[in-house]
Structures are given as structure tokens and as C-alpha cells.
């Protein structure tokens, strides 16, 4: 009996009126876990019942604890008829199972009903007593921590990064069970919600087991997705990166000098002082060329027979891995280091990492984007062999993998193999920023995977490696080196010190600000035509002219100017079809779509005068009669890469004079736009002599790094040469109306209004001084195409306008936050029905200080101290701020009329809440004195100096106190919970991760018009989802959700029947954060602040 779950129902409030006669409610509560149910007494005639129940105790296996949610149902007692359900609360108790996360769940939860939405609130207390279980064969994986964050969480350091973990679970969808015909929509929705909750619990537990097997203790970059396959079932799948994380304790954190010093070390080479001024311009040096597309149509993109599928999916297990790579690589390996890493990674089936940003020194080289897509028919799983087994409550698909070739596991395996071989072709042994997605329409499913091929440093992956170095000084330095996710941002990166890098076998140390740009593949054996130059930063190694990646920009990268969001948008009509025909049609369209998206991206990149893309995400969604493609990325100018050339327009028929004029007009427009963009994004690269080094390929060509394939079967890499054949990408040829449209769409991309920046990555390159303004939002739009005979162009324009208008709308709505940046601006497209296009976006708007941004930028450029600045600036500058703090932290400053800045002052109150000097060590008390001093300067209220015994007690105590004080300050009982899709909140430090939030909700209505139509319905639902997420976080004791994302938003409507249904899946990490200004009350030992901060809250 490994665990005892205890729950107590305290009270309810704002309950709905259930008895029309009395206008009151006789409410009681059922508490259910597994198969055990308890009930409270009926609290008669009240809308604010006080049950104050006993502790309901459930004695359960920890396996169940992981899988099952605690289910709380509020009902209205009815003497004569059946009791009416008011609503439910599902509480995921997983956060209580980890010793480091939350210890109690306590708070007000919205009571949710799938038909009526939120109906009042209920106050619940939940605790878990875990008994130690040393059984080696246990099925549970309690204690493994999960993080949605795709970087090393901020208060941990990665001792080891083990690698890729994946799992999937399949079940029948209750919505499609026969019983659904006779049960109410509510019962059906609840069955579905409960099932998905169970399945995600199970999935998490299984992944946890894999992590334990690998020797890890956490999963970072955990990405869980649902595939609603309709008739054929429900798939819940997840991928993540297994790590061994160590909590940063005071002693292990680097001392402040250590965190400042590297900034000197990484000083940018003074290339601007280059004695030779630039003589040739880096402008359009390429002749006019026509574009051709080297994709060979003979390659089969149609579905192959299942037998060949099987072949492929089974290959990897028999170790095609290393053998294949040796053959592919052929040429001499570049460094010993690579060999080392290679061997470390080869041992893994898939050297994939879902992380998008890395500890310094981890990422050595980046090859480029690798992606693979595959079209599958879902009806395949209607297999007689499965008929019997699928009636089990929960069916683990994996267990059938052996005798069932066409399983989803095999499908994914196949795709991953492809990704792996693409990466290898780029001379890389690993894939970072890896993600997987699906798009389903009827029985056709497109599986996609993408990532960035990379060369990684082995030290994080193999413990053995650590012992391999004889240099004792290195060994001694290792703890600091490995402190990956530390807030301090240790910059003790090995390549800075020559001796250590030499010890590692690196031929040449690469400065971290450009090292990742250097080509990982062999120059003499380039896997694709490329145009290489010597790095413009260090001048020692070769770099490509354009770099596409799916990861965040490395913090230490040197950039020029600011970044911006770039989107390529595309629609393609297709004929309605069924089954194989449909799948084939889609397969045939895919390569053309990718090609075109890529061309658009490339052109838009040039138009901005930039040379690299980060966070590239290409989504292709399938509908009945069209495919929609959307690629988003953040463009930047990497100082290390060459200046991009312009765009030239060429006409096909040069005879006509008016035509010529037209073309030159356009050319002028384009040139103007480029010039304007350069100014707008402050892209003023220092002029340098362009040294084009002889590439082994006869003609220098536009280089493309998009490796992809659509094959389902062949294990040959279907490389699409996206480099426009032998022609140059800078040249756009107007030979038909299509091209004119293309150019038009290029130019119609309106830049963000003044004061706005946008990006789809975590941080905006070039902006370093965030202020406290923070507004997370979700926006959804559905567009109905009523015109039956649309052309591709027409459709493209509509889609393009849809996205552009959405962006414009966002800018307009958030105008009061200027200057601000929309971060993590990721669009999701779907084609929910025949003539509908749905676009959903979740992002965060963050304010920054414009003037300081300038200064800091200079400061930052001096130090090349990128990431550090975001986090360190506050603490570095703290002494200065001490005196001027009050005005700057005042969130209610009248100039910000919107009140988006949530009460920063609220946090000022808890600071001095309990201060007992007596039992503190001297330095602590002096530190606290300082805090107190500061508190006095800021706080408006009175200082309560209570001498409490708990002051040194563990966090929960302090936390609850802090929340209480926040409440009293705010004059309300609701604690403020911030939400952000980023992994951090500017100006704050995350002091504790409380567990993963992973929630799935269904909302349905049969009175659509009465609820304000589809918009009213969805608006209310999204607001409710936010409310429930916030309530759960607050109940865990947290005050923010980071890495928040809305992974699914499936909306269906039937206006004729006045009905609509929507499914939303959200996830994120619940955290406790504190303002840097509070924590860093003293510039002195910052590491004490971590624990000290907890004490004083």
C-alpha cells in the first residue's frame, strides 16, 4: 500500500440556483478516486455551503496515484427525483508525488460542467502520504519530474542529459462507442475527459519508468499530444528529453565573480576595426537565373504497401544506426570530439532532444533543419486481429507492436529513422529542437517530425567522458561548467579556455558567439550544394550563407540588430477523395507545398536583409478539399554569417517597354523595402570584405538546408534540392501571374507598427531589457470560404489576409503596452470542416524599456553576454536601482493605463512578513536587514515584523503566507497567477517548480445563439480554461505558469442545430517566482537569496 491520498471538502461559493422554487441549492459533494467514492453531507438551502468535511482517505497504489485524477462532483440533492449534477473538478495529484514539488493542494477550484461551463467554486484540500517502495519491478515512476519547458529549468542544473524518451497509448474514443447513442452529451463528454486524463496519467507514468531505466530523474521538454482519430480511436503520445537534474543549492551555485568574468572572455573579436575597409559590396552579386525545381517526380510519394513499411520500421531496431552512418559519412571525421560524441549518441536509438535552448557549451555546431512527413491511412487499424483486444479499458499499443506492423509506433519509428538519416547526411549525430505533430482529416493522417541537425558536446551525455580527461584543473571546474540551467548563467564554457578545449580534442576553439554556425559537415563532401565563406566573426572556420533552425537562438550568439517574425503561408486545393486515392493526392502535393513555403521563407528573409531563421515551425494541415501550410520563424542577422544579397526580379519577355518599367518599378519597391527593413530592425552589419572561398561545387549556389522527404517506404533519403537547381534564389522571375502574386504577397507583409516587435522564439534577439508588463493571450479565428470555385491564388490571398489581419488585430489590441514585443507568437492552422480555415495563436506580449534597450544593447554587444543580460541585468544593476526602485516598480503608474502590469507591489508586502533575526547566521540577518530597509522604502503599508518559529521552515509555509499577504494587499481573495508561453518571466526568478499542468476540457452547448454565437461560446470557454489553469496553479501554491501552450483547440459547430462543441488541451509548468528586485536585495552572495528569499516570503 504505497500511498494514502487524503481529501477534504471545505466549502463552496457562488453555486448556481438549482431549485427554482426557493432560489437556493441543497448541495453535497462526491469525492471519487479509482473505484472508491465518499460523500459529504447535504448542506441545505445555500449557495455558499460550508461542508467542512472530514478527511476522506483513499489507500491506493502509487501506480493509480499517477494515472488517476481525483474526481470531485458537486450535486444538488433532490428528495423526489435523481440528484442533479452541478459540475466537476478533476485534480491531477501528480505534483504531490514528487518530494520537491508541491506538498499540498489547497484552494478554490471552479466547478466545471461540460454543458454549462463554470458554475461556482469549491474549496478543497488534498494531501498525499507516500510510503517508500523499493520494489525494483514497480510499475510506477513517482518522483520523476516533468517539465514542459524546453530548456533546463531555471533552478536546476543538468548533471546529465540522457536523451529521447517517447511513448504512446491508444484507446477507443468514448464519443464513438455504441453507448454514446444512448447517453447524454454530458455523460459522453465526461467519459472522454476522464479517459484522456487517465491516459495522460498512464503515459506520464510509462515515460517516467523509461527515464528511471535510463538513470535519469526528470523529463524536460515534455510534449504530449492527442490524436483524435475518430472512429479508429484516440491516441495520446508524448516525447521528451530525459535528464538528470540537480537542484541548484547555495554551495554549488557559482560565485558572482565567476558569472561576470566570462563576459570578458567572450569578448567579440573587434572585427569592426578591420583595417581593410570593404571594397566590394555584398549586394546582388549573382547573375540572373531561372528557377527550376529539382524534385524528381519519379520518386514515389504514394503510399507503399504495408509490407515495405514493416521492413523499414523494423530496421532500426537491428542497429541500422551506426552502420548506416559510417557509410553515409564516408569522409574523415572532423574532430576527435565528434567521434566521441558520435559514439555516445550512436548507442541511442534516436539521438533526439526536444530542448530548444541549451546550456552553454552543449551545442557545438548546427547543421540545419531536418524534417520528414508521412501520409497514413487510419482505416488500417480496423483489423480483425485487434477487434477483441480493443475492448479493454486501456490498451497499450506497444504491447501489440510485435505482431501488428501497422501501428502508430511503427509509423513514428519510421519517421524518426528518416530524421536521423537526414541529420547524418548533414554530418550531424544529433537532432535538437525536435518535435512531432499530426494533422488528421477523416481517415487520412499526416505525421510530421522536424528538428535541427546538430553536433553536441559529449560531456552532458556520457558520464564516462567526464572521467576521460586527465587535466585535474578541468575536473575541478566541472561542477561549474555543468551548471546548465542556473539562473546565474555561468559562462564558464570550455571553449573559452584554450587548454581545456585542446584537451577535448577540438582542433580549433570556436568562440561561442559563432561556433554553432560553423558547418558540421565536411567541406569536401557537402551533402548539398552550398555557398561557404569563412566565418565573419572568427574568420577561422567555414559558415554557410543562410542558417535555418528549429531551436531558440543560442544565448551567446552574436547578432546584429533585432529579429522579426517571418511567416510563409500557403493553401493548395485538392480534389475530394477517399482512401488511398486521397492519401496519394496529398502525398503528391506535399513536396510542392514545402518547396513553396521554403521559397517564401527565403524571399522574406532576404527582404528583411537577414540571414538566419530560428524556431522554424512548418505546419501542414489537411482538410477535405485543401491543404494549408504555415511556416513561422524568427529571422535574425547573425554576425557570423555573410550579408545576404538582395532580391532581383527578372522578366521573361524583355521586349515590352511597359513591362520593363513595371519590373523596374517592382525592383525599386523591393529594394526600398529591404532598405526600410534594415533600418527598422537595425541591421547594420559592419562592412567586411567578402571572401568567397572556392566551394567544391562548380557554381556557388544558394544553399538550402531543408532536408525532407515524404516517402513512407523508401529508406533512401529523398532529399529535395530546394536550392532552385542551378539558379540563384535571389532572382525572382515574373513569368506568369503566379509570380506577380508572389511578389505582391511579399510586399504586402506589413511590418509591425512602430513600437512593436514580434518573434516566435523565447526571446527576441536584440531586446534585452524587459520590464514587468506581461500579457498572455489566445486568439482564435475561423474563416468561412463560401465561394465554391476558388483558385489557389484566391485561397492564398484569403489565408494570407487572415494571418495578416490577425497580427494587425493583436498589434491594435495591445497598443497600450508599447514599446512591447510579442514573443512565442506561434500560429496553429486547421481545416476543421470543408470550407473553414481555423487559425489559433497563443503568445505573450512583454513590455521593454526602449531607451535602456539601446544602452544595454551596446553594453551587451561589448560583453557578448546575451542571455545573461536578460537575467543578470537586474542583479547587476541592482545597487543602482535600490534608490530609484519605487517609481519603477510601481505597476499602477498612470502612464500605463491598461493595468497589464499585475501588482508587482503585491510582492513587496510578503517580503518583510516574518523576520526573526535571532536564529539567523550573521550574514543572513544582515542580508535581511537590507531587505527590510528596502522594503521600507518601497512599501506603502506597514511592516509587520512577526517573530515566527516557522521562518526557517520549509517553503510551503512561507509560500502560503506569501499568497495570503498578496491577497490582503490586493483586497481580494484571488491570487494573481501569471501565464506565459516562455520559460521565464522577465525580472523575476523562478524559485520552485511545482509540477506539470496538463489539462483537457470539453465544452458543448445546445444553445449556441443564446450564448452569443460561436464567438461568445469559444470566448467564454477559453476564459474558463484560463481560469481553471490559474486555479490549479494557485492551489499548488504557485503564482505563475511558464511554458504554457494550448496544444489542441478543436472546434466543431452545427449552427442549424444551434450546437457547438470544443476541445481544448493546455499544458505548462506551475512555478513560484519572485521578483529579482526582491530576491537580490543585496548584490552580495546571490546564492543565499534563493533560500533566503523563501524564508522571508
Amino acid at each position, binding site marked *: 500500500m504505497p500511498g494514502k491520498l487524503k481529501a477534504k471538502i471545505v466549502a463552496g461559493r457562488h453555486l448556481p440556483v438549482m431549485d427554482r422554487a426557493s432560489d437556493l441549492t441543497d448541495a453535497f459533494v462526491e469525492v471519487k478516486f479509482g473505484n472508491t467514492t465518499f460523500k459529504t453531507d447535504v448542506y441545505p438551502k445555500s449557495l455558499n455551503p460550508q461542508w467542512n468535511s472530514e478527511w476522506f482517505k483513499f489507500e491506493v497504489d502509487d501506480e493509480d496515484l499517477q494515472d488517476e485524477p481525483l474526481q470531485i462532483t458537486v450535486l444538488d440533492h433532490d428528495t423526489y427525483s435523481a440528484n442533479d449534477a452541478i459540475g466537476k473538478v478533476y485534480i491531477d495529484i501528480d505534483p504531490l508525488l514528487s518530494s520537491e514539488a508541491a506538498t499540498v493542494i489547497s484552494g478554490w477550484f471552479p466547478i466545471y460542467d461540460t454543458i454549462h461551463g463554470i458554475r461556482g467554486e469549491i474549496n478543497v484540500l488534498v494531501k498525499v502520504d507516500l510510503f517508500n517502495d523499493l520494489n525494483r519491478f514497480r510499475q510506477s515512476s513517482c518522483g520523476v519530474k516533468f517539465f514542459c519547458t524546453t530548456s533546463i529549468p531555471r533552478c536546476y542544473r543538468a548533471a546529465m542529459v540522457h536523451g529521447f524518451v517517447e511513448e504512446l497509448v491508444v484507446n477507443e474514443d468514448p464519443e464513438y462507442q455504441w453507448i454514446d447513442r444512448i447517453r447524454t452529451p454530458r455523460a459522453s463528454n465526461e467519459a472522454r475527459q476522464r479517459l484522456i486524463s487517465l491516459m495522460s496519467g498512464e503515459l506520464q507514468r510509462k515515460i517516467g519508468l523509461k527515464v528511471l531505466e535510463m538513470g535519469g530523474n526528470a523529463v524536460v521538454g515534455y510534449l504530449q499530444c492527442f490524436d483524435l482519430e475518430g472512429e479508429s480511436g484516440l491516441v495520446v503520445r508524448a516525447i521528451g528529453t530525459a535528464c538528470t537534474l540537480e537542484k541548484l543549492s547555495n554551495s554549488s551555485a557559482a560565485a558572482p565573480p565567476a558569472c561576470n568574468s566570462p563576459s570578458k572572455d567572450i569578448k567579440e573579436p573587434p572585427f569592426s576595426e578591420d583595417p581593410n575597409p570593404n571594397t566590394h559590396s555584398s549586394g546582388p552579386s549573382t547573375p540572373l537565373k531561372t528557377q527550376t525545381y529539382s524534385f524528381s517526380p519519379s520518386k514515389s510519394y504514394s503510399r507503399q504497401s504495408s509490407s515495405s513499411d514493416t521492413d523499414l520500421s523494423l530496421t532500426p531496431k537491428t542497429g541500422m544506426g551506426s552502420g548506416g552512418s559510417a557509410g553515409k559519412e564516408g569522409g574523415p571525421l572532423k574532430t576527435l570530439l565528434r567521434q566521441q560524441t558520435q559514439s555516445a549518441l550512436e548507442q541511442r536509438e534516436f539521438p533526439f532532444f526536444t530542448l530548444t535552448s541549451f546550456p552553454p557549451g552543449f551545442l557545438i555546431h548546427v547543421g540545419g533543419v531536418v524534417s520528414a512527413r508521412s501520409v497514413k491511412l487510419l482505416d488500417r487499424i480496423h483489423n480483425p486481429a485487434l477487434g477483441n483486444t480493443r475492448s479493454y479499458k486501456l490498451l497499450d499499443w506497444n504491447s501489440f507492436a510485435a505482431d501488428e506492423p501497422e501501428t502508430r509506433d511503427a509509423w513514428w519509428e519510421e519517421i524518426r529513422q528518416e530524421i536521423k538519416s537526414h541529420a547524418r547526411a548533414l554530418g550531424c549525430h544529433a537532432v535538437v529542437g525536435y518535435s512531432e505533430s499530426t494533422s488528421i482529416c477523416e481517415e487520412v493522417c499526416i505525421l510530421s517530425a522536424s528538428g535541427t541537425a546538430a553536433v553536441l558536446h559529449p560531456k552532458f551525455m556520457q558520464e564516462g567522458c567526464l572521467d576521460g580527461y586527465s587535466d585535474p584543473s578541468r575536473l575541478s571546474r566541472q561542477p561549474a561548467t555543468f551548471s546548465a540551467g542556473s539562473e546565474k548563467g555561468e559562462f564558464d564554457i570550455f571553449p573559452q579556455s584554450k587548454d581545456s578545449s585542446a584537451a577535448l580534442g577540438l582542433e580549433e576553439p570556436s568562440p561561442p558567439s559563432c561556433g554553432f554556425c560553423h558547418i558540421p559537415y565536411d567541406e569536401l563532401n557537402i551533402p548539398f550544394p552550398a555557398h561557404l565563406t569563412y566565418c565573419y566573426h572568427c574568420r577561422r572556420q567555414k559558415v554557410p550563407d543562410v542558417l535555418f533552425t528549429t531551436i531558440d537562438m543560442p544565448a551567446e550568439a552574436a547578432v546584429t540588430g533585432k529579429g522579426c517574425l517571418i511567416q510563409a503561408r500557403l493553401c493548395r486545393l485538392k480534389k475530394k477523395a477517399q482512401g488511398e486515392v486521397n492519401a496519394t493526392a496529398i502525398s503528391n502535393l506535399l513536396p510542392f507545398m514545402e518547396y513553396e513555403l521554403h521559397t517564401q521563407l527565403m524571399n522574406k528573409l532576404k527582404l528583411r536583409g537577414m540571414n538566419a531563421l530560428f524556431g522554424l515551425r512548418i505546419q501542414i494541415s489537411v482538410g477535405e478539399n485543401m491543404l494549408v501550410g504555415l511556416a513561422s520563424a524568427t529571422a535574425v542577422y547573425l554576425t557570423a554569417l555573410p550579408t545576404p544579397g538582395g532580391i532581383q526580379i527578372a522578366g521573361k519577355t524583355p521586349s515590352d517597354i511597359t513591362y520593363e518599367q513595371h519590373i523596374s518599378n517592382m525592383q525599386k519597391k523591393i529594394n526600398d523595402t529591404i532598405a526600410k527593413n534594415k533600418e527598422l530592425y537595425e541591421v547594420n552589419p559592419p562592412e567586411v570584405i567578402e571572401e568567397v572561398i572556392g566551394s567544391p561545387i562548380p557554381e556557388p549556389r544558394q544553399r538550402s538546408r531543408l532536408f525532407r522527404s515524404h516517402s513512407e517506404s523508401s529508406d533512401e533519403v529523398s532529399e529535395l534540392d530546394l536550392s532552385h537547381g542551378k539558379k540563384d534564389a535571389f532572382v525572382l522571375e515574373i513569368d506568369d501571374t503566379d509570380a506577380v502574386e508572389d511578389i505582391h504577397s511579399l510586399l504586402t507583409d506589413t511590418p509591425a507598427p512602430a513600437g512593436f516587435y514580434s518573434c516566435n522564439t523565447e526571446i527576441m534577439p536584440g531586446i534585452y531589457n524587459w520590464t514587468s508588463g506581461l500579457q498572455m493571450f489566445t486568439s482564435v479565428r475561423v474563416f468561412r470560404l463560401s465561394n465554391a470555385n476558388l483558385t489557389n491564388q484566391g485561397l492564398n490571398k484569403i489565408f494570407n489576409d487572415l494571418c495578416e*489581419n490577425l497580427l*494587425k488585430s493583436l498589434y491594435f489590441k495591445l497598443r497600450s503596452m508599447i514599446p512591447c514585443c510579442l514573443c512565442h507568437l506561434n500560429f496553429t492552422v486547421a481545416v476543421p470542416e470543408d470550407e473553414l480555415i481555423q487559425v489559433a495563436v497563443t503568445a505573450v506580449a512583454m513590455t521593454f524599456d526602449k531607451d535602456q534597450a539601446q544602452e544595454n544593447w551596446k553594453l551587451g554587444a561589448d560583453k557578448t553576454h546575451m542571455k545573461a543580460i536578460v537575467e543578470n541585468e537586474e542583479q547587476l544593476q541592482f545597487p543602482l536601482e535600490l534608490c530609484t526602485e519605487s517609481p519603477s516598480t510601481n505597476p499602477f503608474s498612470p502612464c500605463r493605463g491598461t493595468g497589464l502590469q499585475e501588482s508587482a507591489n503585491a510582492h513587496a508586502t510578503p517580503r518583510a512578513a516574518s523576520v526573526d533575526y535571532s536564529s539567523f547566521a550573521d550574514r543572513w540577518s544582515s542580508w535581511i536587514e537590507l531587505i527590510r530597509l528596502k522594503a521600507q522604502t518601497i512599501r506603502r503599508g506597514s511592516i509587520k515584523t512577526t517573530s515566527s518559529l516557522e521562518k526557517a521552515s520549509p517553503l510551503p509555509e512561507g509560500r502560503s503566507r506569501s499568497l495570503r499577504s498578496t491577497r490582503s494587499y490586493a483586497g481580494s481573495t484571488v491570487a494573481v497567477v501569471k501565464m506565459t508561453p516562455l520559460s521565464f518571466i522577465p525580472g523575476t526568478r523562478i524559485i520552485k517548480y511545482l509540477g506539470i499542468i496538463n489539462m483537457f476540457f470539453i465544452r458543448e452547448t445546445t444553445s449556441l445563439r443564446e450564448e452569443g454565437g460561436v464567438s461568445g461560446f469559444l470566448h467564454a470557454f477559453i476564459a474558463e480554461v484560463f481560469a481553471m489553469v490559474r486555479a490549479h496553479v494557485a492551489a499548488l501554491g504557485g503564482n505563475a505558469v511558464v511554458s504554457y501552450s494550448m496544444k489542441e483547440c478543436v472546434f466543431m459547430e452545427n449552427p442549424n442545430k444551434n450546437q457547438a462543441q470544443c476541445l481544448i488541451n493546455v499544458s505548462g509548468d506551475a512555478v513560484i517566482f519572485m521578483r529579482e528586485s526582491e530576491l537580490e536585495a543585496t548584490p552580495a552572495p546571490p546564492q543565499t537569496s534563493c533560500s533566503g528569499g523563501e524564508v522571508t516570503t
Partner: protein
Amino acid sequence: MSMELDVFVGNTMLLDEEVYKLWLDGYTVGDAVRLRLEGGVLQECEASEEVLHSDTMDQFRTFQMCERFLHCPSKLANQLLFQIPPHRQAMLIERYYMFDSGFARELLGKKLSKGTKKDLDDVSAKTGITLKSCRRQFDNFKRVFKAVEELKGPLVENIQHHFLLSDRLARDYAAVVFFANSRFETGKRKLQYLSFQDFAFCARQLISYWTVGSVDSMLEGMDVDLEKEFLHDLKDLKILITDKDMLDQHKSLVCAALRGKIKVFNEMEGNFKNLSRALVNIAVKLTHTKDVRDLFIDLVEKFIEPCRSDRWAVGDIRLFLTHYTSTAHKLDTFRHLVIWDRYMGVVKSCILKMYHD
């Protein structure tokens, strides 16, 4: 081809005070967009009408969802659906309960019944305020009235406590509640020149000095009703006009005090007995509920109009009333000085407030 669905939801409620005002004023989305366009919102931020429409729709929807919390403002602070910073909550509530004085003037003293609500279209037509806004304001009146009519303690504080309003707005509501409860006649043609603020001032005077709560403000007071005992005691003032000697003595005292100080001395001297009779008669009649309702019309007809026809200046009236009140203390046989001062204090302030064109 159309936008089927278009929503924007922020984690912290995003709202534009200007749009909130348009919503409160009862405009349709179309009208609101037009007004915003005219207001030049697009000049400060480049955007199209489409964008403006979408933004307006979003905000109107948000306000609509929020409205049920605004009906019970204390709920707004502990509801979970919207995350709203406290100062924004206060703004939302204050604006929601703010009313047009033109509307309030129309409704003043009327019974807040269904019948009155039905006639709101007339009010709307007369005041130019949209019917929707009229309904909201009416419902607010009624809600506040219902909540505090039975409550003990100071009226303004009760309103403030229940509806979290600013001091000023709570005072105005107190006036509305007070008038609705006592049903003072305010609709007569002769009273049309008086504004809501005039009446609100008078109401504050009445609440402060003539209600039960005014006597012992701490305890058990009911601010809504006039103190019965006091009204009954006012009968005793009759002696001022019935006792001829006293009336004459009063007159001579007043005349002595005012001689040379006011321009209309002669008119005053000639009219003194009428004026004094008018003021005392109003007091004496206040025992009857019906006459209480007519308090303001009586003041206008019996006192203000005669003075106005004689072209008294406000300063003259002030001097007259001041001395008229104070000289009563010098009357040998007049004993009801406490009642007299309590009565005249209020009547004087009311008359001064009401004496304008």
C-alpha cells in the same frame, strides 16, 4: 466568405475604457465602431475598420460576460473567470454604476417599479440616452434600492459597502434611494428647472439632519426614512405665525438686522408675514406623508417664486434666512429652538441651492 469566429482572450482582462463607456452607453457594435472611428482611434495606431470591429466585438463580449459579476460587485473580487487587477475592478464597478444625471433627474422620486421600467422609452426619447443604457441605469437604481432599503446604519456607507462605489457616487445613490423611498414630487413643471445635483444636495441635507440616523448616527439608525417624531414636533412651530405678537416681534427683529443690508428691504418688510407663514406652514404640514412628498414644490411655490418675482438676489435670501432663523432665538416665548434650528437649517440650505434660474 466571412469571419465565422473571432475571439481574443487575455490572461489579464484587456480593456479599453473608451470602449467600456460605449458599451455602457448602450451602443451597438456598429455604432461603437463608428464612434471610435470618429474619435480618431485609428490615427494613434494604424489599423483598419475591420480590426476595430473585431476589437470592439471582443470587448463587448467580455463586458457582457462580466456583467453578472458587476451586479454583485463584491463577487468581482473573488470570481475566478477573469483576472482583473484591483484598480481595474474598481474602475469597472464605478463606471458601471455611474449614471447620467439627466436620467436620474427623470426618475427621481418615482417608484422603481416594473411600470416605470416600461416607460423608460419615453425617458430615453426625452434624454437622448439609449434605451439599453436607461435600462441598465434603472436596474442599478433598483438593485441598490433593494439592497439597502431595509438595512440599518448610514445609507451612504451601506451603499459603499455593498457596491464598492466611490464616496461621491455612493452619495448620489443615497439621494436616489432616498427620493425613491419618500417619493418626493419632482416632476411638476415648476420643478423642471432643478437639476439632479440640486435635488441630490437637498437629499443629503434631509438625510443628514431629518432622518433617524441623523440623531444617533452610530446605532440602529435608518437613514432612508425621515424621523417621525421630528416631523410631529414641527407642529409646535405653528406658534410663530399664530401668535400675532410673536410674528410681529420676529418681523421687527429681522428688519432691524437687515436694514441697509439688503437691496430688497422694502419688499421683504412688506412680504415678511407671508414668507414666514409659508415656511412655517410647510413645516407644520410635514406630518402628512402627502405633504412630505410636496416639500419641494411647496418651497418653490410658497417661497422661491414670490422672492424671485421681487427679484431677490441669492445674497439677500441668504441674509434673510440667516437672520430669520437666528432672531427666533431672541423671541421671549418661543421655546422650540432645537426643532426650529433643525428645520430651518435644512430649509435654508435647500432654498439657497434651489434659488436659481
